[in-house]
């Protein structure tokens, strides 16, 4: 199969959907001629024109709010927030408006809005451009949260997001934009709430999502050489959360490591652990469920410091060994 990058896969999904559905409009800062801060929308202005690919002033509240209103009035807007950190600037519109409009109006409106936003550290962009904020939104009923880890998933999940009748926060993984992978041509979609088993194993299960999935697979390969067989679960969407797959993997392996880039305290990892512990998997556990997550700190600028506060392959491997009672 042909290989394209994660960024290209996103562009392809959005472009294909826009070709087949006139009610989709695309709104954001510098998405037009500039092609977006990460080049995701390169060429789209030329194809779809300025009425559908709409540059905005620097006004995140207005951007998201405009998306909410346009969705309530019959369109299917896709809005881009240039860095997911800037969701904080538009937070009211995301959580108090988009996520609540349907419920508080008794179901009179649907809000088929997609908010795309690049997430994560690793680019030396420091504290205000490097956060992983998915936990805030997983804790916000009314919005769905998607964190694709491969180009193929990015395409298929974005299509599902665009077709969903609810607000969807689509968190793109900044460091994956240039990563290539096999992506089917043409139309396909990937359902929400279905985790993928990226590697089968029986000794220990790693539950992760987004860009950390790659590192988990690397770590799994490392410890495989030492005889530890790791199952790697990629959640793909965090809301809805595929609790069944989490529980199944925990029962199968009896040992679970949760890995995410976001700060550990208060992160989605806690929900995953609680899901396991409050299920029948509890009775299958051979060891405490452990987390290997971002440290509880803003992301520093310096590259060494930056690397030191988010999970690295070696650290994940070490945690796997620890869980399996091996010393390195």
């Amino acid at each position: 199969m042909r290989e394209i990058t994660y960024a290209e896969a996103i562009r392809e999904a959005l472009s294909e959907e826009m070709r087949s559905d006139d009610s989709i409009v695309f709104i954001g800062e510098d998405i037009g001629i500039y092609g977006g801060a990460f080049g995701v929308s390169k060429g789209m202005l030329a194809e779809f024109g300025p009425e559908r690919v709409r540059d905005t002033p620097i006004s995140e509240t207005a951007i998201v709010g405009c998306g909410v209103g346009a969705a309530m009035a019959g369109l299917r807007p896709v809005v881009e927030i240039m860095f997911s950190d800037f969701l904080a600037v538009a937070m009211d519109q995301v959580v108090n408006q988009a996520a609540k409009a349907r419920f508080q109006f008794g179901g009179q409106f649907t809000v088929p809005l997609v908010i795309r936003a690049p997430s994560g550290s690793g680019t030396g962009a420091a504290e205000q451009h490097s956060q992983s904020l998915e936990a805030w939104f997983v804790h916000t009923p009314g919005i769905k949260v998607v964190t694709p880890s491969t180009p193929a998933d990015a395409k298929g999940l974005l299509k599902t997001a665009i077709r969903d009748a609810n607000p969807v926060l689509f968190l793109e993984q900044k460091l994956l934009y240039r990563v290539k992978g096999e992506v089917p041509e043409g139309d396909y979609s990937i359902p929400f709430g279905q985790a993928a088993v990226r590697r089968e194993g029986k000794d220990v299960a790693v539950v992760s999502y987004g860009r950390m999935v790659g590192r988990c697979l690397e770590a799994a390969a490392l410890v495989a050489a030492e005889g530890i067989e790791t199952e790697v679960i990629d959640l793909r969407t965090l809301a809805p959360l595929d609790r069944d797959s989490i529980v199944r993997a925990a029962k199968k392996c009896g040992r679970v490591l949760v890995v995410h880039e976001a700060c550990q305290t208060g992160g989605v990892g806690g929900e995953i652990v609680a899901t396991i512990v409050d299920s029948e998997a509890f009775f299958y556990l051979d060891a405490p469920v452990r987390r290997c997550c971002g440290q509880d700190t803003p992301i520093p600028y310096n590259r060494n410091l930056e690397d030191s506060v988010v999970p690295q392959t070696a650290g994940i491997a070490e945690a796997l060994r620890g869980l399996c009672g091996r010393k390195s």
Partner: protein
Amino acid sequence: MTITREKLGELYLKMAQTRRFEETAARLFTEGKVHGTAHFCIGEEATGVGVCSALAKEDLIAQTHRGHNQAIGKGMSLDLMMAEFLGKEAGYCHGRGGCMHIADSSSGSLGANGIVGGGIPIAVGAAFALRYRKVDAVTVCFFGDGATNEGAFHEALNLASVWKLPILFVCVNNYYAMSTHIGSHMNIEDISIRAKAYGIRGEAMDGNDVAAIYEATLEAKEYVKREGPMLLVLNTYRIMGHSKSDPQNYRSKEEVEGWKKRDPILLFRKQLAEAHGFSPAELDALDEAASADVARAVEFAEASPEPRVEDALRDVYAV
């Protein structure tokens, strides 16, 4: 332009309905029948009624927390409003929203918002959607004087201006944001000056003259369809407290009494009698109709069932 006699009667009736609706709601509070809060627009009826009576069904409105006049102006049902106020399943939002979130997709209300200023960007998005869909309609966005200090106001007006959208921004200036007098929350006397920051037209006018507001809205509708956004400031006064728990220690009785003399319903009654030949009997009949309508709404609402607890999570997500 001359307003038809029928329209004049409609304006009066809607103002009277609004007044009676709120007086009744206040009584229901006192009787302990309401769990929650409400914000009354008594004294400001001319604003929402005048503006919304000039709109067509396809035109959209975004309401404020103080918007019973806006809803009634747009033709929403007193029955369903009262049922919502009492949290009943038959209410507009099936008892989920209460009167701070009254909405009606069928009569073109995008809903009231509990976040001051929160509805303004949403209205801009709706205006964009109408234009994009080539619907020949305008969007009207209501907000208060206090709301114009929120960032959302600024971003939304700027975006609407840059995109030249058919939207009428209506600022209901009642001179107070809760206890804070306009003189302490902004440093300009005429809010319509804020339009200049966006390069759009701004006008201020008497907010207690319902007929003039109605006519100004008709004109403004044509303007915004042609030229893009406009800010219309309606200067009026909130006679009641901010919400039911307001101690009202921040303003003088004299100030309130002064404005009561400019009660928009009294003013309009006089105008109808003196300039348009409405007889006292005719006007009394409209008042009585309003009372009867509200009484029926209360009956309807009280007879309506409570939402079922089993349905509590309905509509968190669309399926």
